[in-house]
């Protein structure tokens, strides 16, 4: 049979028409689209049932309680705990992206000696050698933890020294140590009972104290109200977030906070609007006007305003003695609605400026990245994330520490709290073998030291014995009703929080003999309490992919 061109055409057309009627071309089209929806290089989430566990955020000393969603053992989302009376379910913006930090490209997973890779063995040998050769200073960025006790004990036994890097909120309370003899770590602010809050640049609505606490108080009592129950007055040189939402914003020249505080105190004392027995400061209103840029009338008006609705408390960003003196004049120290004493007698530790001549410095992973010891000592720095700069935070040894929720730790009372609190942050993520915390290293070096676990257990026992306070766990229960220390510890280890009783009425007497000189200090913008060199990756939404924030607000490296 001869196949003609016509035959070919006929058969070809017929086949094409027939093919269209079969599922073949449609299936192929469908497959193409499915392929374009499932490119193999697009990451997929783990498909596993989700369980929710509780812990606390360990990025900063605020230790906000967290609910963590886990799938196949990995954290896939975080949220706050609404039933917690202090945090009220809030986390800071960084907290919401914290669960991804452990895979940050800057995550440190090898021991670095200078620029070169080394090993834990080498590091231990070097550390032991340093111990033999001279005193060691240990620097802690998150004092009060069980790990902190390890540092303190180790330093004492070895004849070294233990130093803390206080958070800005604690630093601001330092002047009251001289005035009232109470260490700053024992003090807090009774914001729940304050009706006027005068903030000298403190970011009360943007990361000061426990994020949820003042945000919630302010939202419930002040936001949007023309005559709010809680008056927030923000003294600041520029319109910060807190200033933008404050009931009143007093724009002054940067660095003139002391002058303003002193001038206001003078007005109040001269006009007899406060009953505290303190000397009248020498600074004149004219001088204050010159320094602050506010007119004398404005200063007078402001002074009268702050006492119009007591109790009033002034909050500083640093240890400015003039603002502390103003608080004394306002009668805000040791009273309801002001600066209160929590009651527990905490130890006061030296700061980093007292590090003398030492053989070596051991820096815990909680210390802000920009801290570099000036001493001519060998530096052993623990860090979960490495900074971008090559000279690794000034460290000779960079040691990979546990990252987010990778180790059991505890959460002492956060700065600014008016009541004692305690929580345990269980480890929810399995740490890889190459990470080790500073406390683990020290406990390995001196096996007589009480480990973190042991200390936590001891603290649970103390709490149980005291029979005070309330446990906020799956159920809210007074400690007095908890049947055993094992039950208490079990609750705490699964993320419950202990909140102590309100003892703000405990006396705190302050004496002001002489008014401090109002020194024009450089603009002290409160640093963020996130000291790490790496931000949670999703923070890029805030400073890179939008104009909402500047990267410099957080980034230290």
């Amino acid at each position, binding site marked *: 049979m001869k196949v003609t061109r016509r035959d070919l055409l006929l058969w070809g057309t017929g086949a094409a028409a027939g093919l269209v009627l079969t599922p073949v071309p449609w299936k192929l*089209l469908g497959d193409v*689209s499915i*392929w*374009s929806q499932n490119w193999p290089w697009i990451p997929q989430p783990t498909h596993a049932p989700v369980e929710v566990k509780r812990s606390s955020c360990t990025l900063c000393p605020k230790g906000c309680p967290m609910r963590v969603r886990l799938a196949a053992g990995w954290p896939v989302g975080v949220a706050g705990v609404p039933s917690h009376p202090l945090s009220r379910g809030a986390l800071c913006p960084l907290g919401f992206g914290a669960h991804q930090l452990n895979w940050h490209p800057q995550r440190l997973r090898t021991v670095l000696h200078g620029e070169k890779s080394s090993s834990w063995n080498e590091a231990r040998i070097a550390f032991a050698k340093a111990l033999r050769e001279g005193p060691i200073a240990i620097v802690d960025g998150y004092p009060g933890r069980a790990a902190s006790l390890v540092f303190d004990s180790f330093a004492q036994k070895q004849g070294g020294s233990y130093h803390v890097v206080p958070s800005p909120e604690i630093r601001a309370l330092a002047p009251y140590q001289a005035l009232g003899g109470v260490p700053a770590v024992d003090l807090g602010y009774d914001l729940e009972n304050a009706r006027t809050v005068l903030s000298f640049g403190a970011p009360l609505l943007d990361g000061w104290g426990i994020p949820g606490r003042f945000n919630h108080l302010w939202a419930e009592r002040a936001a949007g109200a023309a005559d709010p129950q809680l008056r927030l007055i923000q003294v600041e040189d520029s319109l910060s977030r807190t200033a933008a939402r404050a009931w009143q914003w007093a724009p002054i020249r940067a660095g003139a906070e002391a002058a303003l505080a002193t001038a206001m105190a003078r007005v109040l004392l001269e006009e007899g609007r406060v009953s505290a027995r303190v000397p009248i400061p020498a600074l004149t209103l004219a001088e204050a006007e010159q320094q602050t840029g506010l007119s004398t009338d404005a200063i007078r008006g402001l002074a009268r305003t702050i006492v119009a609705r007591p109790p009033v408390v002034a909050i500083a960003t640093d240890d400015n003695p003039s603002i502390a003196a103003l608080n004394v004049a306002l009668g805000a120290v040791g009273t309801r609605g002001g600066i209160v004493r929590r009651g527990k007698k905490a130890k006061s530790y030296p700061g980093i400026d007292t590090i003398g001549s030492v053989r070596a410095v051991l820096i815990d992973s909680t210390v802000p990245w920009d801290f570099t010891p000036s001493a001519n000592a060998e530096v052993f720095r623990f860090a979960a994330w490495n900074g971008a700069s090559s000279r690794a935070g000034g460290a000779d040894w960079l040691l990979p520490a546990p990252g987010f929720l990778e180790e059991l730790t505890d959460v002492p009372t956060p700065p600014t709290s008016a009541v004692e609190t305690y929580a345990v942050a269980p480890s929810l993520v399995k740490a890889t073998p190459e990470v080790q915390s500073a406390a683990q290293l020290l406990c390995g070096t001196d096996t007589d030291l009480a480990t973190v676990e042991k200390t936590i257990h001891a603290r649970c026992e103390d709490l149980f014995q005291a029979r005070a306070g309330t446990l906020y766990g799956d159920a809210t229960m007074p400690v007095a009703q908890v049947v055993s220390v094992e039950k208490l510890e079990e609750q705490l280890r699964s993320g419950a929080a202990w909140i102590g009783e309100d003892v703000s009425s405990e006396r705190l007497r302050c004496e002001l003999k002489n008014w401090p000189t109002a020194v024009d200090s450089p603009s002290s913008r409160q640093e963020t309490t996130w000291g790490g060199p790496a931000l949670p990756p999703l923070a890029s939404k805030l400073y890179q992919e939008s104009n909402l924030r500047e990267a410099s607000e957080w980034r230290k490296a």
Partner: protein
Amino acid sequence: MASSVLTDSRWIARGALRTAAPRFLLWLAPWAAVLAVGIYAAGLCLYHGLNQTHMDNRFAFGLWIFLDLGIIALGAGAFFTGFLVYILKRVELKPVLNTAVVVGLICYSGAMAILMIDVGQPLRAWFTFWYPNAQSMLTEVTFCISCYLVVLIFEYVPLLLRNRQLRRVPSFLVFEHQLHKLVPVLAAVGALLSFFHQGSLGGLYGVLRGRPFAFREGFLIWPSTFFLFILSAIASGPSFLMLVTAAVEKVTGRRLVSPQLYSRLGFISGVLLAVYVAAKCLDTLLWLNVTSRSVGFAPWQFYSHRPFGTPVLFVEIVILGLLPAFLLTYRRFAMRRGLLLGAAAMACAGVLLNRFVLTIQTLALPTLGFDRFLLYSPSWQEVASFAGVIGYGVIIYSLSYRYLPLFGQAKGNTYVPGN
């Protein structure tokens, strides 16, 4: 002409005068280079994604959409000339009909190529056909442009088959002959399809309720921009044909059409342009004073950002609209080729400006009360891709001119008076 090793005279129609092959290749070379760069730029966009462009979340449409709309409007000469010749029997326009088809084919295939790069997922292009949204103007555009491209291919194929060598294949000859009979039908279908998609392209902007700068009321479901786009397309199509024909005459160095053709095309273009300008003025007044005000936009808000001030509107309607309309229709200028071509260029520029304003100015203008006015400039990949289309167009046209009887009949194609 000296014969050389490199010769393609077998492919050239007998008696037709064409430049030597090496010289032709020399002519093609720079355009081929431009096309090559364009393909590379397009490849980058397909491989890396649209982050290669400078489009962003606020400028979701950019250079490509603006130029696509522009060349589709200019390529309207294809359907409109076909409509005039076959439906309205204006046979004096026949000499440019083939050019119109080739230009149309180039414009539409080029636009389709750019659109395939412009979408984020080219492999899903068929979804519009499978899950069409009857409400969306873009669905209509997609369908009509695709169908019209097929029509243009069917209109081009007979031309292609008239090539000297291809004619020798009997089945091609038969096929061409059959197709030839279809041409009036194709012209009618093409006119209908083109009418709708030119309109829908205007509808794309006119239905944007969220963009008061672009939004227009209209007739039934069609906003006024639907009709304005059709008018401007059929007004600029003949102008563009004039420009292309003049360019071809210049490059080849021969007279290919009668001088009256220019004035004829110009007159048609001018009249339509005048109608368009009148409609546009009415539309602009209604839009500024009624439509936009009803959603809270005062007219000055659209024109208070540099460089898109009221001068742009004035240039679009008067300088590049009313003025060329007058120049093209005024009897005294009918034989002044230079003036006519200048006016034609202005008409085309006016249409391009209109597409630009509706694409770029729409997106630059704030919509929310706290938006800022934004600027956009294309990346080199965007410019190169489109330049590649121009290179492609010149190459296709050059090849068509060389090997196919674009002007006149099979034998020779130098213009002979009286033909």
